[in-house]
């Protein structure tokens, strides 16, 4: 095969998913984006690259990840059957490793020696630091100062892995500002540096490329659910921050029109409170971080700071393909509050002995609602995008296991 088969869900040549996506970026970075797009295009048609990526996923990241039924948890979901896609069992504890291994291999192909990344919860930062250690790349991670405090354990992990973590003190001091700072670094050091973006957002080719590195989640899930349940699920649930774990699992089922694709956004203190990160549910189209997509913005087009108890979801933007899936109706997006997510977090821990990431707990809370809607015969797959070890501090405070300091 000389030409890669065109995926009908790919964006156009310039990265547009309908009216979304594209490249709203400084001219200084367009050369690097072109280089990346060309290298990625070559790589995905190069059997040696595909084989190396597959080998790393299998022998290093622990793929395929399990599909585990959660019957005791499902008792709280109106009797529907619920299966969990166990991305929490991947090396480094979340789905993030898939994309990171792919982009780290590309970095080496491009002859770049330095990698920068942004991180919210720290999962993407840890995964990036891990891949850089594995491949001998220099690594700098930008992390909002608020998040370095919420996710101190992951900061220590990144340090141990040899990465430099730079706390970002501008703006809301969370994920959005970490991305701003990483972009400033990239525009200054673009000759030597690859920006390893951690979600399916940003300028073309990132949304398409990051998605493609994560579609392994959906492909495995489709095979596994057919094996275990003998049919396709009624619904696939995933949490949506920037949208990478959701787009990865959605794509396994995107051509199965009877499978509902449902993304759960952080409802924070409740939509009415104004303190949330429900970009697709509550936002409007706009431009942020290089792409046109839905956005939380005020009357003047200034970005509104997102809020969530989960450091990996409080992002006021979202990947452009999700905007397109929302408008076309192929996917639905709903929100889950902090309290609902934390209840699901505790429920899964106590019914199944699995401690999920608070991000993933949003999808679990969503599945409880979907299950009640679907009733007895319902079949749901939840993308358990990560494990919750990193969240112990937040959980202990939320449930009052320790004194809130």
């Amino acid at each position, binding site marked *: 095969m000389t030409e890669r088969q065109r995926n009908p869900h790919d964006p156009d040549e310039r990265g547009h998913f309908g009216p979304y996506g594209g490249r709203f970026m400084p*001219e200084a970075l*367009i050369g690097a984006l072109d280089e990346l797009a060309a290298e990625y295009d070559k790589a995905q048609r190069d059997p040696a690259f595909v084989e190396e990526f597959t080998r790393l996923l299998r022998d290093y990241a622990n793929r395929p990840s399990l599909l585990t039924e959660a019957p005791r948890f499902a008792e709280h979901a109106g009797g529907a059957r619920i299966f969990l896609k166990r991305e929490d069992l991947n090396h480094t504890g979340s789905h993030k490793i898939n994309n990171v291994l792919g982009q780290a291999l590309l970095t080496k192909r491009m002859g770049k020696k330095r990698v920068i990344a942004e991180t919210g919860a720290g999962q993407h930062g840890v995964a990036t630091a891990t891949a850089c250690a594995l491949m001998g790349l220099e690594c700098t991670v930008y992390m909002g100062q608020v998040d370095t405090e919420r996710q101190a354990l992951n900061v220590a992990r990144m340090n141990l892995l040899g990465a430099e973590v730079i706390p970002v003190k501008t703006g809301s001091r969370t994920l959005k500002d970490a991305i701003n700072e990483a972009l*400033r670094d990239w525009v200054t050091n673009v000759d030597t540096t690859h920006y390893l973006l951690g979600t399916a957002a940003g300028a073309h080719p990132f949304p398409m490329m990051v998605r493609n590195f994560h579609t392994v989640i959906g492909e495995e899930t489709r095979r596994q659910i057919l094996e275990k349940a003998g049919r396709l699920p009624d619904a696939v649930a995933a949490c949506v921050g920037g949208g990478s774990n959701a787009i990865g699992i959605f794509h396994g089922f995107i051509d199965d029109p009877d499978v509902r694709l449902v993304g759960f956004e952080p409802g924070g203190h409740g939509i009415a409170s104004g303190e949330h990160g429900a970009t697709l549910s509550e936002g409007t189209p706009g*431009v*942020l971080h290089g792409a046109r997509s839905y956005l939380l*913005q005020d009357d*003047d087009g*200034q970005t509104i700071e997102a809020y969530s108890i989960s450091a990996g979801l409080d992002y006021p933007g979202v990947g452009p393909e999700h905007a397109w899936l929302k408008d076309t109706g192929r996917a639905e997006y709903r929100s889950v509050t902090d309290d609902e997510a934390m209840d699901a977090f505790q429920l899964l821990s106590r019914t199944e002995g699995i401690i999920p990431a608070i991000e993933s707990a949003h999808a679990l809370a969503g599945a409880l609602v979907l299950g009640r809607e679907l009733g007895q015969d319902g079949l749901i797959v939840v993308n358990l995008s990560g494990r919750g070890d990193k969240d112990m501090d937040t959980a202990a405070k939320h449930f009052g296991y320790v004194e809130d300091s």
Partner: protein
Amino acid sequence: MKTLDALFAQVRAEDRAALIGYLPAGYPTVAESKELLAAMLDGGCDLVEVGVPYSDPVMDGPTIQAAADTALRNGFRLRETFDVVQSVTDHGGHAVVMTYWNPVHHYGVDAFARDLIAAGGHGLITPDLIPDEAEEWLDVSEKHALDRIFLVAPSSSEERIARTVKASSGFVYATAVMGVTGARESVGAGAAELVRRTRAHTELPIGVGLGVRSGEQAAEVASFADAVIVGSAFVTAAKEGAGAVRALAEELAGGVRRKSGHATVAP
């Protein structure tokens, strides 16, 4: 002839480079920003860039970030951009607006253009909008006879430079160094090389920005560029008030008339 064309023709006739100064609207307050811009004009700026404070200024270094932040915290509203542009026009000066794309996108490209024209503004500088994504702006600017100032960078390919200058009018903005805004010790030989490469594709005037802060540097840049663009240094001066802004503009205006850098910057 559009106003910027006339302005640059006159500057050329005087055998010098133009001085373009940047300050954010609403910094530190709307009223004070009008005074600061007036001081810039009084000190000898040929054209001012009125910046739109934005929540996520990825092309800006700490100085301009902090100024935008101050303006927003002091309650700056987007529509006040036009009041500030009007004040420049009323002072007998010329203004273009420099803005990240989302505020314009959200305001409505046509509405923004109409209000800008009404205030006497001449066009937009768009640091995160490349011609590839500018379809609507190309149409609207054509309709309202506004100038479109796009950017070229040292990393731009010949092909991209050619496409960018073709879509531009008024002047072309050459970012002297790879990086964000901020005053620098040296502007770098890369700037002269970028101007040379850009010149091969266009007759439009070429302005060089990012890093200039002194009369000496202005003279150096004036030796190979048609306009010297100064931003962060003005923002820093603005902290000391209108007097300091005027003094800096005078120093820089002297610089663009000196062209003493001829020998020191090899193209």
